């Protein structure tokens, strides 16, 4: 599936929720069920610090596609991280670099990407794109 298709899939899933409670319960569930990042990647060099919560991000390239794993110390951040990974992991570097990721806004989670939240997510997206750029230039 392309990035756009995956975004659309998530938007459809979120349309089923009646209110914010359902939505956040789902995000919290996602946060709990994300496969753990390999502990060796929960190190400083993979850490993206926010003031409020922080994110660990690891990337590798296989067969022309970039694969990400990530984690966060806060559950809600982790749930949103898992959505970002679902959309972006396994895609080609160029597609990742050009992704607009407006699904976040469409599912009503834009507030979590505001710089004032400082939860690590904004910098995580930047970092994801930097990884993609780096892998692209190595190709």
């Amino acid at each position: 599936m392309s990035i756009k298709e995956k975004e659309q899939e998530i938007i459809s899933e979120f349309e089923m929720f009646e209110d914010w409670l359902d939505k956040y319960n789902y995000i919290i569930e996602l946060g709990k069920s994300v496969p753990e990042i390999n502990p060796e990647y929960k190190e400083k060099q993979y850490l993206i610090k926010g003031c409020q919560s922080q994110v660990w991000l690891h990337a590798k390239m296989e067969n022309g596609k970039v694969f990400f794993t990530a984690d966060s110390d806060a559950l809600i951040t982790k749930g949103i991280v898992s959505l970002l990974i679902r959309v972006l992991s396994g895609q080609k570097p160029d597609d990742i670099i050009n992704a607009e990721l407006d699904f976040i806004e469409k599912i009503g989670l834009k507030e979590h990407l505001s710089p004032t939240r400082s939860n690590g997510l904004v910098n995580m997206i930047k970092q994801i794109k930097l990884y993609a750029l780096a892998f692209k230039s190595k190709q």
Partner: protein
Amino acid sequence: MSFNVNLVRKEFPVLDQKINKNDLVYFDNAATTQKPKSVINRINDYYSFENSNIHRGAHYLSQKATEAYEAARVKTQKFLNAKHSHEIVFTRGTTDAINLVASSFSKKYLKKNDEVIISSMEHHSNIVPWQIACEDTGAKLMVVPMNNNGELIIEEYQKIISEKTKIVAITHVSNSLGTINPVKEIIRIAHKNDIPVLIDGAQSAPHLKIDVQDIDCDFFCMSAHKMYGPMGTGVLYGKEEWLEKIPPYQGGGEMIKEVSFDKTTYNELPYKFEAGTPNVAGVLGFEAAINFIDQTGIENIANHENMLLDYAIKELKNFSNIKFIGLAKDRASLVSFVFDNIHPYDVGTILDKLGIALRTGHHCAQPVMDFFNIPGTVRASFSVYNTIDEIDVFINALHKTREMLA
């Protein structure tokens, strides 16, 4: 004077709104308080009918604005019980006031190997300006430690202070722990060694009766926006002697007597420290805020807030796995806590959805979080317009939040 919280609430238009279909519960008062109508109207009136630059024109409006501005200075002097009105310098806020002192004082009085004492519970605004001053001069920053309850260890302070110490800068009330520090004693010890003391009053001025002559501090800083006044306005109180001795901070209009390209003579106090057109509307709004505090009565405010704090702590104690951050005997109206295994960010996010506005995170006091080895806390801070009912709503919301995150 009798105190009726329902009447007080009516003065604050912002409180009457819904967030996510819930009544707003505003418990982020340590970050900034809401503004009563009298403050909003004062600013509105100034710009509607009185706006003019001060100290400059001889025309009617300019004179009226100047008189109003100087009357606000006298009001502030009385509020702090300062000896002279020229000991009141208007600034942009506490941060600006501390930077003024750190910069001007260090230019004249700090040199290599001197020492500046702060405490381990300072807001970044009372750390970074001193770090900059130390970097510029080669002086050293010394830190008074605290105990696990979040109280400064005075014996350690006495050990740190020496003939190398040139200034002590300590917060009156901690914004992350709520601790009220024994500033009078801290100042007495410093003065025995002829060392001046700056008190960061950002969190004390809204809650306690401040008498700068009684506590005998050399500098006192506060922010109007944390005491029902507008943002962008604050106060530096300085003893005449010290304000005379330290050099000006910024150059520009208003702070000079005569300017030629060879030499400039500086204006007298307090204008020496008020370069450029000041925030006149802000200062007049602040005056209205002081009137609000005076009319409500600072004792009534303090009693009401203490009652709310005691009730909140009693209710919070019923939660399992709660850990209070800051258990000082002397506390002002805020409570900071964490739950085992629940991140403060998650708590804050869900509470926000439930209409509860409070602060999660490190509260600009990262060294405090490092000391307790936590990423941040959930902080509820109370003000004169908050109610017991709101605390009940908050506690219920916390139960719900915990269920969701469990």
